[in-house]
């Protein structure tokens, strides 16, 4: 199928823009896995919740998502912190099978709670920059998505610096590497676990605010994004922050190009199939057989 290079470049660029947001979602997921060693089944539902929160901040309070992010990120950090501290940890006592079930339970509650409360209508917002574009050479890129790209990378970089330079960040890395050793050195592990979970959900809040201007909101949309995020995390390596970033951008481009060539409807199916394939083919040694 002959495609002009201009269209291809545009598709790649769009892919990178979306990819940065994927990367941010994947970042939260991989951070939670890397430190707590749990696969957060509630990640998708929490992203949906964040999207709804940003939507209603805009619709009922009139706060633009680019502004409400400064409210929602701390709020969702707190939510994640409390969820881990008060629900996940006590309910599961650290057992793998129990953690699986509890995060599943949370996912079911949040997703269906949103469904019950708001029904399944699609919602979008009108953003002041909603129809603006940025010209880059021959490419026309939606302004909202360019901003999202830059912001997502900035947040990722900020998170990286936080982990590298602050005391809490060091404690997080210590717990991720060697929990027992960290505990013996005096690190408050339950607190660090909760902080990490909170950071993961805060990433979701930021991603949601960046997504909202150019995307729609339904109770199922979180899952679609998170599935891609899961694929990225497994591809890039569970617990690897650079892996999540690189993987996110890569998958974004792949999705954009295949969307160009095969159409949207096959898109979701394709992502699921890639996801299954990645899980089946990825050699055991690199990520271990069990979370």
């Amino acid at each position: 199928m002959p495609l002009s290079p201009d269209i291809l470049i545009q598709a790649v660029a769009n892919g990178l823009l979306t990819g940065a947001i994927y990367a941010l979602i994947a970042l939260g997921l991989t951070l939670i896995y890397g430190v707590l060693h749990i696969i957060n089944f509630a990640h998708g539902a929490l992203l949906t919740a964040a999207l709804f929160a940003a939507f209603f901040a805009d619709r009922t309070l009139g706060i633009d998502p680019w502004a409400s992010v400064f409210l929602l990120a701390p709020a969702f950090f707190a939510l994640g912190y409390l969820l881990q501290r008060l629900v996940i940890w006590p309910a599961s006592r650290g057992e793998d099978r129990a953690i699986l079930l509890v995060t599943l339970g949370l996912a079911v509650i949040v997703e269906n709670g949103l469904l019950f409360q708001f029904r399944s209508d699609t919602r979008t917002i009108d953003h002041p920059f909603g129809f603006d574009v940025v010209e880059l050479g021959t490419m026309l890129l939606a302004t909202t998505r360019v901003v999202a790209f830059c912001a997502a990378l900035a947040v990722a970089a900020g998170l990286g610096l936080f982990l590298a330079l602050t005391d809490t960040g060091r404690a997080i890395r210590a717990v991720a590497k060697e929990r027992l050793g960290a505990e013996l050195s005096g690190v408050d592990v339950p607190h660090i676990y909760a902080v990490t979970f909170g950071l993961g959900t805060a990433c979701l809040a930021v991603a949601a605010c960046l997504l909202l201007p150019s995307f729609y909101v339904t109770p199922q949309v979180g899952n679609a994004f998170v599935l891609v995020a899961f694929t990225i995390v497994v591809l890039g390596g569970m617990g690897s922050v650079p892996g999540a970033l690189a993987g996110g951008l890569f998958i974004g481009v792949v999705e954009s190009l295949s969307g160009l060539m095969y159409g949207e409807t096959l898109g979701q199916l394709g992502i699921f199939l890639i996801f299954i394939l990645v899980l089946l083919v990825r050699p055991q040694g690199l990520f271990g057989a069990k979370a």
Partner: protein
Amino acid sequence: MTSRFTPVLVVLAALALLPLFVTSNVALNFLKVALMLALAGTGWNLLGGYGGQFSFGHAVFFGTGAYAAAVLQVRFGINAWAAFAAGTALGGALGLAIGWLTFRAGLRGSYFALVTLAFAEVARIIASVWPLTGAGSGILIPLKVGFATLQFASRAEGYWFVLALLGLAMLLVRAIEGRRFGAQLVAVRENEDAAKALGVDVLAVKLRAITLSGAITASAGAFYAQTFLYLDAGIAYGPWISVEALLTAIVGGIGTVWGPLIGALVLQALSELGKHLGGDAPGLGLVLFGAVLILVVRFAPHGIVGLARSLRPRRLARG
């Protein structure tokens, strides 16, 4: 040997007599659905409870059983009973296929749960666009009451049919409990490496478990098709049945033969209660179920059966 099956047979007999005393349509419907969920849960329980492999996508088996039964009858004119059997067998074959792919790749724990979730979603998407399964509009089995078409003249008959299916499944599980396969299955659940070192062919054991599990849950799906006569992708392969299948086992008592039955009755009762209080809005039931899941994991990880056992004085001598 007979003593192992007696309690199950007694309970089944008692349940079989129930329609003689309970004639209200509402009650019989309630029981029919509960038993169907118990059947789906029994399938899940074999793989998840006894085998320790938690599937989050058992809908893939339920839906396959349902669609196979429906499609074979409606599109290919095959006899309802044959279609039912084919649906069950197809569920088993699908279990074997999925198990072969995932267990050979070494997927366990959360990864296994994730991949089963993905399989269920793939099935749902395919069913929602494939003309064979009716795509978006779903598939309708024409109403034609009679023995040949496996459509029940009365609610009691439907109840007895699903009771028979459940009974067979429970007796199968009971039998497995008393055999080498059962011992090896729980060993795999408790500790795969130790099991391997003791000569257990872990892969073969898991494959057998998932095949049986898939067939049992598929039969529940086929029953759904025959009872409600309408399917679409969201009903057949939706998360609701994945969640309910696992929830009945966990609430009732994971890894026990009674668990799914008790869990299904309790959850159905809860669901009806929820409808009374909150109306028929979508989502409320599952919210309740999610909360129940977390509460059970927190306070009663061995379910209702586990609670009952902990209240009984410990017997020191066991046969």
